[in-house]
């Protein structure tokens, strides 16, 4: 059989963001894969260098349309470490609440994308419908569905009133009933299993070798979770359960995320039922003392790492983000060869790539 090159992307129905996969296919089997990224590089890290530290929050928020709050959280934490200010408890709790809501909508989005990739449009419609509720809740709290503008250096801008808390709790209850459906889908639906079980198995050794993080790593048996290993914001007071399984296939990635949906709902409940009183933010000076700091948060896709350097000016000397998509991309390049063409969609969607994060 002849060897043909199937281009997937930079524009393709499978992809939500531009990335180019060039797959060499013989018959229905992929024999070689090449990945090209950089289509959504906007030079945001360079842009940060001319901005004050407080202005930088608005820039990092626009790195990603899904995990925007994780980016601002990581960035603010790094700057806060530089100026050595401690976060007020209420600010920590609200930051964490938004982090968990963000994880909820990100995981639901992912479930929808995967389902659509395997032709299971009903699950796609359900997951994205339920995701809207979470976005509504985030809008209720922060005023923004995608860019929340909730974080500032030194705390948060948006308070959660008791009425808002009640409304979010109602939303969580509704979401939990829907969640039963997704759990059943992952545990029992044979149609779903046929397309996800045993496909693109990522071994624990590969997780180590590529530094894969987040749900993808936890689906391959790694217990890696920054919320547990290096608690930040309010995670120190909370008990974050681990959703770890050893299968390492696309199914395991779905299982891990569905478990985490439940965990996130529980964490949001705990936070909302006992929001600490106190100020929302500390006043901080515009000029930041010279030095460098790093910070890590568990974004929905895994560990998000920020490096910030100040030279004693009002503006940042260097800001660098390492996003969880990068190792996932490297691992994916190894997973693709040997697959059937029919499984490419499930694998690419299953890796939960965020190109806007990776390219910046």
């Amino acid at each position, binding site marked *: 059989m002849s060897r043909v090159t199937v281009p997937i992307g930079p524009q393709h129905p499978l992809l939500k963001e531009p990335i180019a996969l060039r797959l060499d*296919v013989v018959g229905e089997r992929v024999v070689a894969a090449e990945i090209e990224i950089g289509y959504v590089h906007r030079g945001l890290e360079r842009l940060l260098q001319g901005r004050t530290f407080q202005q930088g929050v608005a820039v990092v928020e626009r790195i990603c349309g899904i995990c925007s709050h994780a980016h601002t959280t990581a960035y603010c934490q790094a700057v806060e470490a530089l100026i050595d200010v401690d976060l007020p408890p209420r600010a920590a709790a609200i930051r964490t609440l938004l982090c968990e809501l963000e994880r909820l909508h990100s995981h639901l989005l992912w479930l929808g994308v995967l389902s*659509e990739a395997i*032709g*299971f449009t*009903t699950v796609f419609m359900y997951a994205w419908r339920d995701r809207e509720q979470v976005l509504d809740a985030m809008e209720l709290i922060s005023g923004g569905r995608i860019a929340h503008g909730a974080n500032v250096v030194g705390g948060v801008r948006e308070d959660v009133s008791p009425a808002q808390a009640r409304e979010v709790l109602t939303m969580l209850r509704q979401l939990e009933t829907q969640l039963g459906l997704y759990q059943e889908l992952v545990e029992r639906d044979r149609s779903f299993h*046929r*397309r996800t079980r045993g496909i693109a198995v990522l071994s624990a050794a590969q997780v180590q070798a590529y530094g894969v993080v987040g749900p993808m790593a936890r689906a391959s048996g790694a217990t890696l979770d920054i919320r547990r290993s290096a608690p930040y914001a309010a995670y120190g007071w909370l008990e974050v359960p681990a959703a770890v399984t050893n299968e390492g296939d696309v199914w395991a990635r779905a299982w891990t995320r569905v478990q985490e949906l439940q965990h996130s709902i529980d964490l949001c409940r705990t936070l909302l039922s006992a929001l600490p009183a106190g100020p929302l933010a500390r006043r901080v000076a515009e000029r930041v003392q010279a030095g460098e700091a790093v910070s890590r948060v568990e974004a929905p896709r895994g560990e998000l790492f920020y490096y910030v350097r100040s030279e004693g000016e009002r503006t940042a000397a260097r800001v660098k983000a390492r996003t969880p998509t990068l190792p996932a991309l490297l691992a994916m390049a190894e997973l693709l060869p040997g697959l059937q063409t029919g499984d*490419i969609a499930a694998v690419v969607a299953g890796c939960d790539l965020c190109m806007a994060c990776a390219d910046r």
Partner: protein
Amino acid sequence: MHTLLTLGELLLFPGLAYLVTVALLLAWVDRKALAVLQGRVGPPIYQPLADLLKLLGKEDLDTEGSDARLAALLPMISLACALTAGLMTPVGNHAVISFEGDLMVTLFLLSVPTLGLFLAGWIVPSVYNMLGGNRSLLQYFCYEVPLLLGLAGPAALARTWRLAALMSAQSAYHWHVLAMPVGFAVATLGLIGKLERVPLDTPHAKAEIGAGPLTEYSGRKLALWRLTAWVQTLVGINLMVAVYLGGADVVWPYWGFGVYAVKVVGYMGGLALVQALYARLRVDQVAEMSWRLLVPLGLLQLAVTVWMGA
């Protein structure tokens, strides 16, 4: 006078105009039913017509390196074959053309669009078209046998390959689906494969190969391919209703048509339900299901039917 009547039958009812209208309505039923099942609002009733008209008015591009004349000819031949098949399947309790063996001819005519689709994919120098066309042909070898086996059961029982006779053999509500549920299921899955619907829609799996064999097509050609698919759906369902679900059941023409219409819409709803409930199968899984499951089941049903009937 007779010629005029025949012309009316061919062009108006139950020929071209009727088939196209009902095919468009049925496409709406399909989309609306799926939307309701998925918790969406769904399109308004004129949407398939609007889609068709809009596509007809769009620029019709010829892909460089493909045979323009063949590309234009293939959808016309396919649509003509699907419409001709529509003349043989009973609408209500009347078919324009009816003769011993019309079931086989209908099936043959319904295979032509598949071969046309394969060629349409093959002549365009694009990998998506080529892969889609290949899959179309591969799937053809998977569903055709189960479909034929599934339809052979009732034919063996009624000892006829004529659709009208098959329908009258089910009079007094002795529907074949009650006697041969396994054969009905096998034939339905075969039909789903023929119509390239979820879970057997690998030839145009959007997330894998775009629109498959039709990726590079636009304008009138794409509109005709769409229409072919819709007419094929109508004719396929007509066939199943006539062979398995008793057709029009009653002889009185107006009631008969109503009963038939309800069955067609119900069957379409069933296909939409299947689409809502399952994920797409992979190419190898389609082949496996077809040859390891559907063909043995179809043969078993046929053997039991022949043995019982003897």
